[in-house]
């Protein structure tokens, strides 16, 4: 096994990877930008190397600096986390060329699955159903193809994935504008303007299968996750197992996923995303060649540490367990806490998280990226933490997540906690009656009305009274607050006399 591993990431996923490294007795090395010198992921690691200025391009995407940090710190392997360079085949190649191990799939697998058009072709070869779609060299070719597919269609970036640069359109005019906009964004984000079309399935659910391969054709699955609760194609709440499929369908979907992983001789942990139509038909969507944000729900129902499994495959070229040893029990649900203002169209927020309290009850897991006093900057993804609840039943897990969201407190930066709290308590979420567009179609309007309602009078009273009596609103001083400030509040105001003594 490796003695030292460099984590080429930041935030909660870097902290989470460091946990597993620690328990395996492996030294962890963080990289950080100049903005992240004292970030939580730096504090979570055994050592840390600065790789450049705050802009991702200059630091977390700076391949040369990261490789230099790995050499300097004596790392034998690099874990890319998710995002940043996790699905960059050039990075994987550079890591291997430097004589280090890339903890992830082979570069050719990243390439093959990174081009979503190529991935569709491979899936078809492996016998997986795909959503009707079309490729096209330019706007006009796609406009013609769309006439055959039939509206509505989705416009997707070929090198995109995860909802990035994706738009749904219902007519030709919108298609032209969407294709142009998507090409521009794709060019800037992925360095390649290519886009493709897929038929838009209505009322479909997002189900994905976690797979693990040995890189030699052996592959197993760790059941499915359901991630249908999305806003603008970004997952918000994920769970495992899916409440929408029965054991027979589960068997077919997981078998299809394993077939694809075996066909590409997949190495390490990967996820095969599918759409489930209301009739029960499922379609390959894309394969993510990395650890997913939502991997904890799989870990909680299987008891398996996926990062440990990734390290095992990377170090030995073998799977750490057999398909038979992967059992599931209970239910797990995850909510992603973002620095976003749900009252203002979910605009990303930045600032200092002055007071942070994460829940810590039984069966609640928090994968945190910040603690009290930490900075939330504009440079990086605004996800602050993930709260994950486990329970013997879906209902207990869901109400546990609701309580964990209630108990979570982030003051100093506006977060989407009010959105998550309302969402997880919604009747449709309680009964698992939703699809990938349900949030925008049915939930958001009512929620927005709630968010723009005036704050209760008590909230204003609390703010004003805190100021008037000088009660500490500084989290650093809370523990040493005076034992009885309540009696001094009139001294502070200097206005009060006891009625009996006259005015």
């Amino acid at each position, binding site marked *: 096994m490796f003695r030292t591993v460099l984590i080429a990431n930041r935030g909660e996923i870097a902290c989470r990877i460091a946990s597993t490294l620690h328990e395996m007795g492996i030294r962890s090395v963080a990289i950080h930008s100049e903005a992240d010198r004292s970030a939580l992921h730096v504090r979570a690691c055994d050592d840390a190397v600065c790789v450049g200025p705050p802009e991702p391009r200059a630091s977390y995407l700076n391949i040369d600096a990261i490789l230099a940090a790995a050499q300097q710190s004596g790392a034998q392997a690099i874990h890319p986390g998710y995002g940043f360079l996790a699905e960059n085949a050039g990075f994987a190649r550079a890591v291997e060329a430097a004589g280090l191990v890339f903890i992830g799939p082979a570069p050719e697998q990243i390439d093959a699955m990174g081009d979503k058009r190529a991935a569709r072709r491979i899936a078809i070869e492996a016998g997986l159903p795909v959503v009707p779609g079309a490729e096209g060299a330019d706007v006009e070719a796609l406009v013609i193809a769309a006439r055959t597919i039939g509206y509505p269609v989705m416009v997707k970036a070929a090198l995109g994935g995860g909802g990035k640069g994706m738009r749904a359109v219902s007519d030709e005019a919108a298609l032209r504008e969407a294709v142009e906009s998507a090409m521009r964004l794709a060019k800037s984000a992925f360095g390649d303007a290519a886009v493709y079309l897929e038929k838009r399935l209505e009322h479909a659910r997002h189900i994905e299968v976690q797979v693990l391969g040995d890189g030699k054709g052996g592959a197993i699955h760790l059941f499915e996750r359901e991630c249908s609760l999305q806003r603008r194609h970004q997952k918000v709440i994920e769970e495992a197992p899916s409440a929408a499929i029965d054991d027979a369908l589960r068997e077919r979907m997981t078998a299809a996923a394993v077939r694809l992983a075996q066909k590409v001789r997949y190495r390490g942990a990967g996820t095969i995303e599918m759409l489930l139509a209301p009739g029960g038909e499922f379609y390959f969507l894309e394969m993510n060649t990395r650890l997913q944000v939502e991997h904890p729900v799989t870990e909680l129902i299987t008891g398996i540490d996926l990062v440990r499994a990734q390290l095992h495959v990377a170090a030995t070229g073998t799977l750490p367990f057999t398909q038979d040893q992967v059992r599931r029990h209970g239910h797990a649900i995850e909510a992603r806490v973002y620095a976003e203002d749900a009252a203002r169209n979910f605009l990303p927020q930045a600032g200092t998280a002055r007071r942070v309290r994460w829940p810590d009850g039984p069966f609640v897991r928090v994968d945190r990226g910040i603690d009290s006093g930490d900075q939330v900057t504009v440079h990086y*993804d605004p996800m602050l933490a993930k709260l994950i609840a486990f329970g013997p039943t879906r209902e207990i897990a869901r109400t546990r997540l609701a309580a964990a969201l209630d108990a979570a407190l982030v003051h100093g930066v506006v977060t989407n906690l009010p959105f998550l709290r309302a969402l997880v308590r919604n009747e449709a979420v309680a009964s698992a009656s939703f699809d990938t567009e349900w949030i925008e179609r049915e939930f958001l309007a009512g929620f927005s009305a709630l968010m723009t309602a005036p704050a209760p009078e008590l909230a204003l009273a609390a703010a004003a009274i*805190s100021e008037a009596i000088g009660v500490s609103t500084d989290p650093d001083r809370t523990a040493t607050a005076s034992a009885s400030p*309540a009696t001094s509040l009139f001294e502070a105001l200097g206005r009060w006399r006891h009625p009996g003594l006259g005015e």
Partner: protein
Amino acid sequence: MSAKSTWRDGERSRAVELEPLGPGRWRVRVDDSMFELAAEAMPDGRLRLTNDQGTTIAEVTADGAKRFVRLGRLDFVLEREAAGRRRAAAAHHGGLEAPMPGAVTRVMVAAGDAVVQGQPLVAVEAMKMEHLIRAPRAGRVKKITARAGDMVAPGTALVELEDEA
């Protein structure tokens, strides 16, 4: 005999007046409604508020003029207004501000251009999201202060519009 303060609550400006009635007891006016309240500072820094509806625990964190208020299990963000309602002023002058921290990716108009309502003027990108700043009404671009590549904070003026002559 009372302390007055004004607080921004989303798009609203709200007035609070506190009158001490006795140790830990207050008469509170919020906008047009008036009620009595007992407030006790708990040793852990929270505030125990009791009125005829029952008891609620509040926790207030200051961040500059902002107050993050936890009330029971709900969160609110208020902003202390020093004097009057300054923020409302900007909109009157036709200024269009960055709605979020991010990078200006495209400026789609030039000073002097006539624009129609809803026309995209500037694109700001943060993470996976491109946000278009559109003209709130027809008019003419008076001034452009944003340039592609600029990093902007929320509230940074990007474009100034004037009514068509």
